[in-house]
């Protein structure tokens, strides 16, 4: 039976002539050697394990010993004969990494002299128990290979992040170093671990690691700050990136004409490289800046630029790559024009996709009242869908998913219960931080596993040009912007802006996806990695001390007072009124129009329980609710502490600790008076209880609707609550209508 199968299969493999081989099965693999090998291996593996399963033995046994020299030579010759377009280099690469397993599989299938071995192994039975004895436990790694790898990388990366934590270095740089060491150890030490296990494919990066990070960026974006700095952000993102690309590309090309570098390249090759290296990376910016705590103004400018320059760099990258493929002689003016049009198509298309999906999410969450536990899924999956859809249509997927997050936030917050909103918040953060951690680790590892071509001159020149041209760009743009802005960019601001232009994983992903046919690819990949290391390690580490040294204004950590949230709204209205009187259509007019549109049309459609209004005051109410809740919790803690110290309390303790609580002065006076009057401790407690009860009453009134719909701790409690609810439902259904006056938090 085996012989028949084997013979049939070897027939298929060997006797197919060139044409058959290049038939549908292999036609798709023609151009990419690695793909070719990989897919053939897969097919071979599949057929092979099918075969072995029928015989009940495991492939490992057949090739337990290393093949002899003759067998290795046979393998090499076999490939050279059968697959002439496969380079010898690749074969010996495989053999070097001791992937003889895969080679031998194909060999064996093609009946090249190992059939004997196989037959022996099968007929003699193997050390692995097959159907003859009962297997209590068996080890079958390939079945869980992929999920196992994913899980182990997640665990490894997260553990590394926790273990290597220092206040002198941002986490991202530590992770890169750890990844680098790990990769080096795996590659040179533990060679039994296959390279694919720790090599990041760029498709995994773009499809799985990047979306959560960008979604998190969009969802947590401070919308107001973004709106106020929109002009500068857009200018930096578009003009800045174009300037950087052209400048760096031309400078490098210019130098290459003088033979400074070991490899020469055409103009479009180097422009493609320049387009991917000049884009500031949002992932790196988040990772570094969140530990630096610069003020919001600087952060929003760097971060906004990093996020929105994706559209530009995608356009430039595609454009120059297309030009490279077409060949520099056949590019016409029309193509440049097309490139410019494509910029608008890509950016506006991505934005439109994002907005449409944001509306979709809002509508779905609005109508999902009876499915509260499940509705957060839409909050995550639909933006991801937006990302994938935009990517498939060639538009900027980063723009799509981030704008989706920005737009849908307020509507989702209104439609989901507070706990659900909280869960969404934390889950988003968890996904994003997890992805980011894994990403930086892989950045470290990939330095080892990528094909390298070190040209130190090229690397140094690139780094220098990146820094210099970015600074020039920032200075020029800020000078222009300062003429039109109220809040001007100071010299220190400009320095931070230029220094904070970090390159990161997106550049690496793009460089890894350059076509293999580009001969300069290894050099570009190496340089990209070098630049990323430079920015993440050097700039990332030094930016914190520099920020402190320059005394840059840091983010204020204090809590927003009630006064501020009211007065912000107040000033908004005032200023739009003044603008109206003076007949100016300025920022306030735009914002005002948007808010009116939002309140009148968008919110009633997209959110539940919202009547048409001319303006929206929920921000103020929410701020009030938040502040009082925090105060109440604070008071509760204090009360607990008091109760614990009940027996040993003395006067000074009370008066001291009463300073901690933010009791309005009048009440503090009462407290002091009571103490001076030597009132008993009891009266004080009743005073505290009074305050606390009143506050808690406020809060509980607002939370009444949502209480019965919270998730319980275990299934029994859940069933009980459901029973209670259905009992309430039956006799008197009108009781369950939420009162119209209590606001939706």
């Amino acid at each position: 039976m085996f012989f028949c199968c084997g013979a049939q299969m070897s027939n298929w493999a060997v006797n197919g002539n060139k044409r058959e081989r290049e038939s549908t099965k292999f036609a798709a693999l023609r151009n990419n050697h690695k793909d070719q090998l990989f897919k053939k291996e897969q097919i071979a593996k599949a057929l092979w394990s099918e075969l072995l399963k029928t015989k009940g033995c495991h492939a490992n046994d057949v090739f337990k010993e290393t093949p002899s020299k003759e067998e290795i030579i046979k393998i090499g010759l076999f490939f050279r004969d059968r697959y002439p377009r496969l380079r010898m280099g690749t074969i010996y690469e495989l053999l070097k990494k001791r992937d003889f397993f895969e080679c031998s599989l194909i060999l064996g299938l093609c009946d090249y002299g190992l059939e004997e071995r196989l037959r022996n192994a099968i007929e003699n039975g193997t050390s692995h128990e097959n159907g003859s004895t009962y297997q209590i436990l068996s080890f079958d790694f390939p079945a869980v290979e992929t999920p196992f790898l994913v899980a182990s990388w997640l665990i490894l990366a997260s553990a590394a992040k926790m273990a290597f934590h220092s206040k002198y270095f941002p986490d991202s740089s530590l992770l890169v170093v750890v990844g680098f060491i790990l990769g080096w150890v795996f590659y040179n030490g533990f060679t039994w671990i296959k390279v694919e296990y720790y090599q990041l494919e760029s498709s995994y990066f773009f499809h799985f690691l990047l979306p959560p990070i960008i979604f998190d960026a969009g969802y947590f974006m401070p919308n107001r700050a973004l709106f106020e700095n929109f002009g500068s952000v857009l200018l930096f993102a578009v003009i800045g990136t174009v300037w950087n690309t052209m400048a760096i590309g031309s400078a490098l090309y210019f130098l290459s004409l003088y033979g400074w570098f070991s490899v020469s390249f055409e103009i479009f090759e180097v422009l493609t490289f320049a387009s991917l290296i000049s884009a500031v990376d949002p992932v790196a910016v988040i990772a570094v800046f969140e530990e630096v705590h610069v003020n919001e103004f600087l952060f929003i400018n760097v971060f906004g630029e990093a996020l929105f320059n994706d559209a530009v760099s995608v356009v430039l990258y595609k454009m120059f790559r297309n030009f490279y493929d077409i060949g520099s002689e056949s590019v016409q003016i029309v193509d440049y024009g097309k490139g410019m049009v494509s910029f608008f198509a890509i950016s506006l298309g991505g934005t439109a996709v994002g907005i449409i999906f944001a509306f979709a999410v809002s509508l779905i969450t609005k109508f999902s009242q009876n499915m509260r536990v499940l509705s957060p899924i839409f909050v995550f999956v639909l933006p991801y869908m937006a990302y994938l859809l935009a990517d498939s249509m060639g538009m900027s997927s980063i723009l799509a998913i981030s704008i989706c997050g920005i737009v849908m936030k307020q509507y989702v917050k209104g439609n989901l219960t507070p706990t659900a909103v909280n869960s969404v918040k934390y889950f988003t953060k968890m996904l994003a931080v997890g992805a980011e951690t894994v990403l930086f680790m892989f950045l470290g590892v990939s330095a080892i596993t990528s094909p390298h071509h070190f040209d130190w001159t090229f690397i140094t020149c690139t780094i220098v040009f990146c820094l210099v041209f970015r600074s020039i760009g920032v200075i020029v743009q800020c000078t222009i912007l300062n003429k039109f802005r109220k809040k001007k960019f100071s010299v220190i601001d400009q320095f931070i802006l230029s220094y904070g232009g970090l390159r990161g994983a997106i550049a690496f992903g793009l460089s890894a996806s350059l076509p293999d046919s580009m001969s300069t690819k290894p050099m570009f990949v190496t340089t990209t990695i070098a630049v990323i290391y430079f920015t993440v390690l050097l700039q990332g580490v030094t930016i914190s001390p520099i920020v402190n040294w320059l005394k840059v204004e840091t983010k204020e950590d204090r809590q927003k007072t009630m006064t501020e949230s009211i007065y912000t709204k107040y000033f908004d209205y005032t200023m739009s009124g003044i603008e109206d009187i003076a007949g100016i259509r300025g920022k306030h007019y735009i914002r005002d129009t948007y808010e009116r549109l939002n309140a009148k049309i968008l919110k009633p459609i997209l959110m539940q329980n919202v009547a048409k209004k001319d303006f929206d005051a929920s921000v103020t109410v929410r701020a009030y609710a938040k502040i009082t809740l925090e105060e109440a919790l604070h008071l509760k803690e204090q009360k607990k502490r008091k109760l614990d110290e009940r027996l040993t309390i003395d006067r000074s303790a009370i008066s001291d600790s009463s300073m901690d609580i933010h009791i309005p002065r009048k009440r503090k006076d009462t407290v002091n008076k009571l103490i001076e009057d030597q009132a008993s401790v009891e009266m004080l407690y009743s005073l505290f209880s009074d305050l606390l009860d009143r506050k808690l009453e406020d809060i509980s009134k607002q939370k009444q609707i949502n209480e019965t719909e919270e998730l319980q701790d275990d299934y029994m409690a859940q069933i009980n609550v459901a029973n209670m609810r259905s009992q309430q439902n039956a006799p008197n259904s009108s009781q369950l209508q939420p009162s119209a006056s209590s606001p939706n938090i």
Partner: protein
Amino acid sequence: MGNSSSLMLRDEEIDEISRDTEFNRNQIVRLYSRFLSLDKKGQGYLERDDFLNVPELAVNPLGDRIVDAFFTLAGDNEQKLNFRQFVRILAHFQPINRGKKNVLNGRREKLRFAFQMYDLNKNGYITREEFKVILNSMVGANITAEQLDKIADRTIEEADGDHDGRISFDEFCRAMEKTDIEEKMSIRFLN
């Protein structure tokens, strides 16, 4: 049709206004044409109704407070605003320019405008009741009266330094210390 409210703007007037308010020539001319378009009856001065004819202002919850503050700051009991006064008050909202003197558009002057909007009876203090009125017009439709009270109480307490139950101009300024007034209360006047 007196001197101060002539419908034609003479050069010396423009220069004088420019010196006074630090607007440049073009801005003044532009504001003048705006003034004329608001002054539909052609009286040479603006009244309350002229302001409230601006449609966006009519739906602005603080609309009439703004207009009120205009007239108060102009110091005109007759509720008439000529062009000079008009420009002078708008000058409060110029962005603060580090090179210039900023007499009219300094931080304190901006805050004074805001304060005047609150202070309904013009006694120099914002009482709890006055604050509630403002808050009601901004937020009132959405919350219960009790919550309105609480929010008002809380805000007053935060700002009330000397605990007299009302907010003076100095207390107001101090409460706004951390806010970036220069940025929030400035608009860019086009050339």
